[in-house]
């Protein structure tokens, strides 16, 4: 099987997906995951394209097709961290946001839904990186603790701890607003 971009499927079996098939099936879930992490669609699209580009370069070296999805998730998490760090650096120089580090409110801030999303976004921005990542991987990608551990580099107890603390912090921050 040779993909449109010239990559053969891994040799693990005839039913192994090609790079193109994986790209078609996983692009959307990875975009949603990246959007949850970087909170910006254009940045999320860049993150996902970079992740697939990195996978493309390593395609022949993958142990199994299953490893490709884990590799993608880890790439998306790492690239999202880098994107956020670049964004924070830019903000420090230009002072384009307030002290809370939250981006500007959506245009339709009068609607209850937009207000709730803004509230959650503000609350998430106050969480430590690892708690925000773990909750996003849990809620958006619906991953198991083991998969989250693989994607973030945390231990499984570390994942549970970050998840528990993140939720506790969100309950504290959001208070009775939910």
């Amino acid at each position: 099987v040779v993909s449109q971009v010239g990559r053969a499927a891994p040799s693990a079996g005839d039913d192994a997906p090609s790079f193109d098939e994986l790209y078609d099936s996983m692009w959307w879930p990875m975009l949603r995951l990246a959007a949850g992490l970087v909170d910006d669609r254009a940045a999320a699209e860049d993150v996902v394209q970079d992740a697939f580009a990195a996978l493309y370069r390593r395609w022949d070296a993958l142990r199994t097709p299953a490893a490709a999805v884990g590799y993608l998730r880890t790439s998306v998490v790492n690239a999202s961290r880098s994107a956020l760090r670049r964004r924070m650096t830019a903000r420090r120089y230009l002072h384009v946001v307030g002290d809370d580090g939250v981006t500007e409110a959506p245009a339709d801030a009068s609607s209850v839904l937009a207000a709730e999303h803004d509230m959650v976004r503000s609350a998430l921005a106050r969480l430590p990186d690892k708690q925000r990542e773990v909750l996003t991987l849990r809620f958006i990608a619906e991953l198991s603790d083991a998969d989250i551990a693989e994607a973030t580099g945390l231990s499984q107890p570390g994942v549970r701890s970050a998840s528990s603390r993140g939720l506790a912090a969100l309950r504290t921050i959001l208070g009775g607003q939910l």
Partner: protein
Amino acid sequence: VNDSEFEAADVEARVRELFVERVDAQVGPRRPAPPFDPNRVGPRRTRRASWVMPLLAAACVAAVVAGAVGVTRVVASGGDDPAATHRPAPSATTGVPTSPAAVVPKGTPTVVALDGATIALPGGWVATPVNGPAGGTHEWCLQPEGTSADVCGLALYHVGTAQQAEFDAGREGFGVLGDPPQYLCGNEPSPVTTQDAQVSFGGRAAEYRLFDHYCRASGQRHYVVQYAVADSPVWAMLAEPSDATTRGAMQLIARDSTLPAS
């Protein structure tokens, strides 16, 4: 299921719902993947945002200033690179190394009983249970009363028997409880130097480790400090990263607490 557990599950469900709605609002309805761009594999495609040029200009100014300061410091110090010359303090055999500094709190400690141990905390501190680790491990966050619950600077562990096989007193985060270094220095490579010592923790022999992370990009140092009583019952303390106050608190806790005997 009591009321508070029900309420917690309810809040989690609502938070999950809002997470999903927030992402859905950003990405819109499902659409097929755009064509994969093999050219992206080559030179990285960049979007030059409006802030790039001012940022580059600021970075150039900062680089010139940093270079001038760096030259001054190198000349003043005889030409050595500060990062390269950093060496761990000599390992102590009976106590905690004196560098980096620690501020040991004075005054009457607060004493709490946890799993058969008597833990002495700096005055005004509390031990809050954390429902984190599995394997029968109990964890408490030790911090000044009223401190925000979302950041735990110092954790105390009574390690469960199921997790003791994986527990390694010599590894950062004991191999099973800590975070990977990427949370200290982003994804940048961070040279790590280690200090170690044999100390007493709660009247029992313990391993002390300090992992000194130097983040090249920011120039910052982060000190991960841990104490571990490796024989059953296993107890451990971990601060990642630590400051002088936390390190001082750890010294007080190690010195004035009493752990169950092996």
